[in-house]
């Protein structure tokens, strides 16, 4: 501790603030966000559509739920011997640069949970929701986002099944402010169908996830029955983007910065293009499509690009009755990582896809490039109603969530950690 002068009754109140690292309490890391909530949006209804469940931190819990004896044996053997939290997965640990060489501690964080009951992820998530002022948070996997590129389809199937069991049986049951999107092992359509039917009535599951980092053509007829089931369920289908160092498209990139900038828009651009040009919105008009974690800058680019092409080559998009941009205006997009170095471009882009009704706030917490709710409340060109829509009311409509307040007051959250953050 510094050598502060002996306190006097009329002297200033001075307290030291600790360095923030990987073992800091989530409430301390996010104390500034809580103060932003206190000042700016404590009365908003807020739904975070994309956060992460950090399943790789609890990978043994997932592996032990594999329903195939051989794959469970191989997974647990790898887990205990050499692969640990990467057992059976296709991520490359040496290529994991998200924390910027350890500069950003909340990427991969492990905070102590002394004296807390319940699952440690749920405790951490609750702290994060309270600190950011969230009423609900939808959680996606992290390491499993790359499974679409796994060379063994059956591994995606067994891990997908095990993850869905872990998510619904362990995580979502402990806090109904946490919601999940079912992992679909999209390389094996018939298993996706089986899972959609199996979890149709699970209260924690509010939609379905395809991890975008894969080469499957989304318009393939192999998915027809799956899309019919999803359409009938009324729950949205989300494509969550990602990256993959093994993709030849990115073989020339030598920095994670470059990979992140391009890959997270690349995969969703391909899937949106295939979805529209093959007239999927005409064939499945009631599927609510949500595009996750690609930021926003790509959306107006793709709208204009596809409109331009379809006008010249309508014979190659014969199922369309409108321009691609019109279909894209009816889809939903999550906000993070929201590019905002130019407010003029951001405002024009948001106007292009009707952000007031189509944009869903997302944090991506606890990943390195997360966005606080203040990224929305501080946009100078949005109306008060637009901010409320984007931060929660649009999500309530898409995911059929009640809009009653679920979070504690920001003031009380700050009072729980006096003198620490």
């Amino acid at each position, binding site marked *: 501790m*510094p050598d*502060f*002068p002996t306190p006097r009754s009329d002297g200033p*109140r001075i307290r030291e*603030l600790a360095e*923030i690292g990987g073992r800091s309490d989530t409430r301390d890391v996010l104390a500034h966000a809580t103060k932003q909530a206190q000042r700016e949006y404590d009365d908003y209804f807020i739904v975070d559509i994309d956060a992460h469940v950090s399943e790789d931190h609890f990978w043994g819990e997932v592996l032990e739920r594999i329903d195939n004896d051989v794959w469970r044996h191989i997974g647990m053997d790898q887990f205990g011997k050499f692969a640990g939290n990467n057992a059976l997965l296709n991520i490359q640990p040496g290529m994991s640069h998200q924390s*910027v060489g350890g*500069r950003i501690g909340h990427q991969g964080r492990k905070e102590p949970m002394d004296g807390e009951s319940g699952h440690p992820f749920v405790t951490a998530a609750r702290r994060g929701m309270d600190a950011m002022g969230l009423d609900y948070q939808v959680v996606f996997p992290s390491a499993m986002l790359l499974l679409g590129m796994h060379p063994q389809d059956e591994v995606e199937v067994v891990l997908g099944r095990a993850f869905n069991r872990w998510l619904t049986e362990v995580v979502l049951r402990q806090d109904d402010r946490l919601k999940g999107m079912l992992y679909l092992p999209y390389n094996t359509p018939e298993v996706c169908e089986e899972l959609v039917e199996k979890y149709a009535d699970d209260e924690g599951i509010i939609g379905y996830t395809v991890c975008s980092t894969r080469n499957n053509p989304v318009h393939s007829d192999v998915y027809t029955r799956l899309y019919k089931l999803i359409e009938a369920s009324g729950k949205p289908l989300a494509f969550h983007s990602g990256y993959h160092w093994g993709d030849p498209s990115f073989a020339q990139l030598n920095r994670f910065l470059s990979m992140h900038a391009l890959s997270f828009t690349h995969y969703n651009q391909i899937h949106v293009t295939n979805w529209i040009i093959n007239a999927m919105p005409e064939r499945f008009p009631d599927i609510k499509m949500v595009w996750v974690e690609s930021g926003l800058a790509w959306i107006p680019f793709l709208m204009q690009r596809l409109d331009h092409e379809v006008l010249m080559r309508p014979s190659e998009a014969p199922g369309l009755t409108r321009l691609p941009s019109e279909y894209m205006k009816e889809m939903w997009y999550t906000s993070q990582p929201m590019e905002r170095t130019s407010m003029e471009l951001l405002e024009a882009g948001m106007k292009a896809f009707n952000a007031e009704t189509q944009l869903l706030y997302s944090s991506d917490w606890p990943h390195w490039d997360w966005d606080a709710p203040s990224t929305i409340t501080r946009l100078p060109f949005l109306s008060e109603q637009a901010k409320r829509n984007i931060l929660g009311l649009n999500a309530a409509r898409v995911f059929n969530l009640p809009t009653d307040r679920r979070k504690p007051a920001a003031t009380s959250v700050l009072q729980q950690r006096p003198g620490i953050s």
Partner: protein
Amino acid sequence: MSTGHRDVVVAGLADLRERERVVVEVDGLELGVYLHAGEVRAWHNVCPHQGGPVCQGKIMPRTIQPLRDDRKSAGPAFHPADRNIVCPWHGFEFDILTGRHPAHSGVGLRPIPVRVEGDEVIVTI
């Protein structure tokens, strides 16, 4: 409550010299005080990016891109003297002495007047 400026002792110089950085809250105002290359600086603990607790992050040498005589890359290297403040929220970096982002001179930390008298580090807030 007074609205005028006042001087507050926030650290001892010997302690700051040993620790390189002290982050404190003074009556609700958060600030970081740094000692580097014999210079003392104080910055608001608010990142210009999203408002993160910038002074509570790591201190890192600035990463540079040296070139060989033939202009080929010599690979990344740590600068031998410059030190950066790294915001723990998103990794924005700022030079300890100038408060400036290495890639954008228009992005920087807000300074707080600071001086040393004897062994006392004093900020004016």
